[in-house]
């Protein structure tokens, strides 16, 4: 199967800043991709470009469509949740279902109602009467009932409590994701998506600085906890990051020899957040 998204030389300039700087990447079907970057790195701009919500220069192919020219057709195959709480405040649960059921050919009403049955939402309830968490539940139920090939989530759990956040990703994995679907998610709560991602993309200043699947990340990046006596030896191997914990140093290596590192101390796979911090060093400086 061919790639879901192919981007070539994507560039987007806002008045003052370059949001996307000649970026190229490819996303394969059946993956869950985490697009992670600091504030203002161009994540949302990249997603907007994919969804045809903004103009840009360069080549971009999403499911065989050009998002600039074939946006409405593309939206038949793509779903997105852009930020929390973008559902119109006046709409009732029943109206939202009716509307989507009648304008979206791939919407499965029964599925949506089954998802909603697991929540406290009532058909006559209006969005303005709901908490943020409930709005996301409704939005997710609507989106999961659509048999789309690509789902894009831009900070879908921002501002939700931990129960809603856990449940959100759990529903997504258990009831939605399969090998024909692709999910792209951006979030700052990296720890929560870490274990569900199959691919990782770091974006910084409009460029993709890391693009690898999770297995490759585990191969390539190694974290070693080294006692004070061997710290200099570790430093000689040019780690990309160093931090101190309980009198020991933790070094992060990119593409170093695992056998050599194991002699220095205990090795492990770095968490995405540590990797992120190391990669983005100096972003705001």
């Amino acid at each position: 199967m061919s790639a879901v998204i192919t981007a070539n030389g994507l560039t987007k300039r806002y008045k003052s800043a370059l949001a996307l700087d000649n970026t190229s990447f490819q996303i394969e079907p059946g993956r869950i991709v985490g697009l992670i970057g600091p504030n203002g790195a161009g994540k949302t701009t990249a997603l907007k470009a994919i969804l045809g919500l903004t103009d840009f220069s360069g080549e971009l192919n999403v499911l065989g469509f050009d998002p600039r020219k074939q946006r409405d057709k593309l939206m038949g195959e793509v779903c997105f949740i852009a930020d929390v709480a973008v559902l119109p405040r006046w709409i009732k649960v029943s109206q939202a279902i009716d509307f989507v059921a009648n304008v979206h050919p791939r919407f499965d009403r029964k599925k949506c109602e089954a998802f909603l049955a697991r929540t406290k939402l009532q058909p006559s309830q209006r969005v303005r009467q709901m908490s943020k968490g409930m709005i996301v539940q409704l939005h997710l139920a609507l989106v999961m009932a659509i048999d789309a090939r690509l789902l894009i989530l831009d900070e879908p759990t921002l501002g939700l409590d931990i129960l809603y956040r856990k449940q959100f990703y759990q529903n997504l994995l258990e009831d939605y994701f399969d090998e024909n679907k692709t999910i792209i998610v951006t979030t700052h709560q990296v720890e929560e998506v870490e274990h569900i991602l199959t691919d990782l993309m770091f974006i910084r200043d409009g460029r993709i600085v890391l693009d690898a699947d999770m297995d490759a990340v585990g191969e390539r990046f190694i974290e070693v906890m080294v006692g004070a006596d061997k710290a200099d030896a570790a430093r000689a191997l040019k780690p990309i990051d160093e931090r101190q914990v309980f009198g020991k140093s933790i070094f992060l290596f990119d593409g170093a020899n695992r056998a050599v590192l194991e002699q220095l101390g205990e090795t492990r796979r770095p968490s995405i957040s540590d990797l992120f911090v190391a990669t983005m060093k100096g972003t705001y400086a």
Partner: protein
Amino acid sequence: MKTFYWLVKREFWEHRGGFFWAPVITGGIFLLLNIMGIITAEVLGARQGISFGASGGLRKVIEGMDAGDMSKVGFALDIAMYSAMGLLIVVLGFVVFFYCLGALYDDRRDRSILFWKSLPISDASTVLSKVVSATVVAPIVAVIVGIIVGMLQLLIVAITLSFHGVNVWQLLVLAHPFKVMFNLIGYIPLYVLWAAPAVGWLLICSAWARSKPFLWAVALPVGAGLLVSWFGIMGLFNLPATWFWKNIVQRALFSVFPGSGSIFSADSDNMVSHVTGSDALDLVNTWHMAASPNLWIGVVIGAALLAGATWFRRWRDDS
């Protein structure tokens, strides 16, 4: 087609207050005022010892009427029906005006545009659904409410008179409720055409403005009008400055008020002035406007403005 139906339905859900409750409440107030007026008149009349029905004077008047008088009564009753519509039309104008200003702006402000845009709907049909809601759905509701209120109005008058021993039911036959209905509904297509430039202008402001669409929509034409008047720019075309006010400013802002076409259309001066009474509202007469270039130039400009609104809806990137 099904999608479009649901888009219009969506507008009605969101704006039930303006489209439905505003005319209903206005109609209710209209009837209430009438009833209060009648009661006041009755009380005052009783206090002064005037009892105009009992003496049979009115009955005699009715009996003495010839065919010409009868048709005048019919007109008067028709006018009573139209009068209910008059108030509703003003309300409708305001509803449509503010609906258009918010139609492509409110969902950008509260960011729910991100939800609407996640559905497979073209921006052209979105904009078109708003045009249809403003110029067809809202007037139809207003006309239906207006007709019901008009009929109730006749009923109230009839009942009041029958308390005075005057049987006016025979007079009600002289009214032409169906003609009134036909005239009002038949006016709607004309309204769609006449309102086009204003709807287009308001929607393009709504789609374009980053904030305060009302201010832009009003300030731009009025500001331009002031400049034109001040510097006498229209003099270059051998036209008075009022031409600009009448044909640009007024058309851009006030064409959403139904009937404004007949009132200040450019050729109203040479409109058939011998038509009097409720006949002026007959379609034969109102549709005279369809021959005026003013109407059709407005339609063309309205279409261009709507195309612009669609473009802004597609590419405005600020949510």
